């Protein structure tokens, strides 16, 4: 079971050619610069655009082929638009009821209450949209989409129109929504921060074509792709909590290449935690340093290295099977004589908990 997508769309100068399969579970980020066709792809999946050539099959049901075009209102989707788009003539409760009343479904009451408390909008139900902040409106719009019992959730940069504060306010809600859902989520974004926090998979789009598709952890660290070469190149590592030291406020987190020790608020054992490590916070040594304040040191193999400029170099290291990016100076690389296949030690200075 998966989502098969094949589209050919031409709009003047712009053309979009898509041929891919999206997994039935987890969050897939559609990531790319403005004008790369992200929104067009999402709209075509929703039936809001009619591609000249298209094939779309969702969970075994054909939504579009040469002879079929299921209109939007017959597609079991939840769609959240970029700008808050509540119906201005209806209050919050009626906005939510609008979609719910029109979708055939069971256990309505339960999932309605769940969605409302998940997004924390209990106190807003009687208000009119104009009395809500942008962030609150988007939360309502997400609930409204969720309670239609969609078999797929499509979000078109739901945070892009919001200020930083409101983004920070809404991100935790989105995380908990994604963790609770067992339907595929397609999330259009041009913010690598959001993608790093929220996505399981990335579909990289450039000028209307897919340039890469895979796990977030792989795409972020592939030296063949642009993300690893940006100034803020980073590694994403999914870990599991094994213990928490309350005296020093340190959590021990397990991943396939070893263990991280990270300062954090108390964490339950066995919870999943996603870590973010900036490439410039990782350095390499030939010997295992003993007299250092750095807590996280791993034996690694140099998998790949690429010169970024005359002064800077990016290393792709492997700790076990887990990739880790390091940004070092070319002079250090030369004086340490770093080559592909070398065994070295990676020192990780700063680790951030993403979720």
């Amino acid at each position, binding site marked *: 079971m998966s989502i098969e997508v094949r589209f050919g769309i031409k709009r003047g100068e712009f053309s979009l050619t898509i041929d891919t399969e999206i997994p039935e579970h987890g969050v897939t980020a559609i990531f790319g610069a403005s004008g790369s066709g992200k929104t067009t792809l999402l709209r075509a999946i*929703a039936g*809001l655009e009619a591609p000249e050539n298209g094939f779309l099959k969702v969970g075994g049901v054909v939504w579009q082929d040469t002879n079929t075009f299921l209109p939007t209102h017959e597609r079991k989707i*939840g769609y959240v638009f970029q700008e808050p788009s509540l119906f201005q*003539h209806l209050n919050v409760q009626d906005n939510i009821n*609008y979609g719910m009343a029109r979708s055939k479904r069971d256990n309505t009451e339960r999932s309605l209450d769940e969605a409302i408390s998940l997004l924390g909008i209990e106190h807003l139900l009687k208000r009119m949209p104009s009395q809500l902040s942008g962030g609150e409106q988007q939360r309502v719009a997400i609930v409204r*989409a969720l309670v239609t019992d969609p078999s797929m959730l499509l979000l078109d940069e739901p945070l892009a129109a919001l200020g930083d504060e409101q983004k920070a306010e809404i991100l935790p809600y989105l995380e908990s929504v994604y963790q609770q859902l067992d339907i595929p989520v397609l999330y259009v974004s041009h913010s690598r921060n959001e993608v790093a926090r929220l996505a399981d998979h990335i579909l990289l789009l450039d000028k209307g074509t897919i340039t890469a598709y895979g796990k977030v952890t792989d795409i972020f660290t592939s030296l063949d792709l642009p993300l690893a070469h940006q100034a803020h190149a980073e590694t994403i590592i999914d870990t599991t909590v094994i213990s928490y030291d309350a005296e020093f406020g340190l959590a021990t987190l397990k991943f396939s290449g070893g263990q991280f020790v990270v300062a954090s608020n108390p964490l339950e054992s066995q919870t999943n935690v996603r870590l973010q490590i900036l490439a410039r916070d990782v350095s390499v040594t030939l010997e295992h340093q003993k007299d250092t304040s750095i807590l996280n040191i791993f034996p690694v193999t140099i998998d790949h290295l690429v010169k970024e400029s005359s002064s800077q170099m990016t290393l792709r290291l492997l700790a076990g099977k887990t990739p880790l990016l390091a940004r070092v100076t070319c002079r250090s690389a030369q004086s340490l004589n770093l080559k592909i296949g070398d065994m070295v030690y990676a020192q990780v200075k700063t680790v951030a908990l993403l979720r």
Partner: protein
Amino acid sequence: MILTEQDLTALFVTLKLASVSTLVLLVVGTPLAWWLSKSQWRFKYLIEAIIALPLILPPTVLGFYLLVSIGPNGPIGGLVDALGGAPLAFTFTGLVIGSVFYSMPFVVQPLQNAFSSIGQRPLEVAATLRASPMDRFFTIAVPMAKPGFITASVLGFAHTLGEFGVVLMIGGNIPGSTQVVSIAIYDHVEALEYGQAHWLAGSLLALSFLMLIVVYGANRRYTVAQP
């Protein structure tokens, strides 16, 4: 001096004509305005120009053509005759037909603007929430275009109220059936009955003003409640 029975009848005919015409215009004009606001047809402007014609055409010209076409030898009159209907010229029904054409732009244009200003987005949102096209029209487009409907009704009604030339051409001046206030006033002035003309004109003025106050008051409350 007070209104005569004939004046009162003229007043009644006028209000009836304006009400019926407005109702017909809303029924005919709403789908037309919706189509105009959505259609990508390249010759759409031809339809728009035809609808706007009464804005610049002297009412007598419009009235003349209407008279010809609803007469027994005209296309509309001939059709009605063939279907076994009574002749339309110099009847109340004929007046309604004339008023509908005459006031069409005053109803269609505000509605078209109101529908256009809603934009595509709310309708797309409704589609993603499982609403069919008809459903979207009645639950999203119509409520969101409410100020447009109010404006269209007021303009359509008021414009029909002030109709003179078209009525004169196709309705004649039959008291109790096709004599409207504007023509009754004209008759009074012709007969130098200025007192009577004052009473009738004053009544129409007061009535129109009262109606506009009520409607704009309601419209204002609506706008204030939904900024």
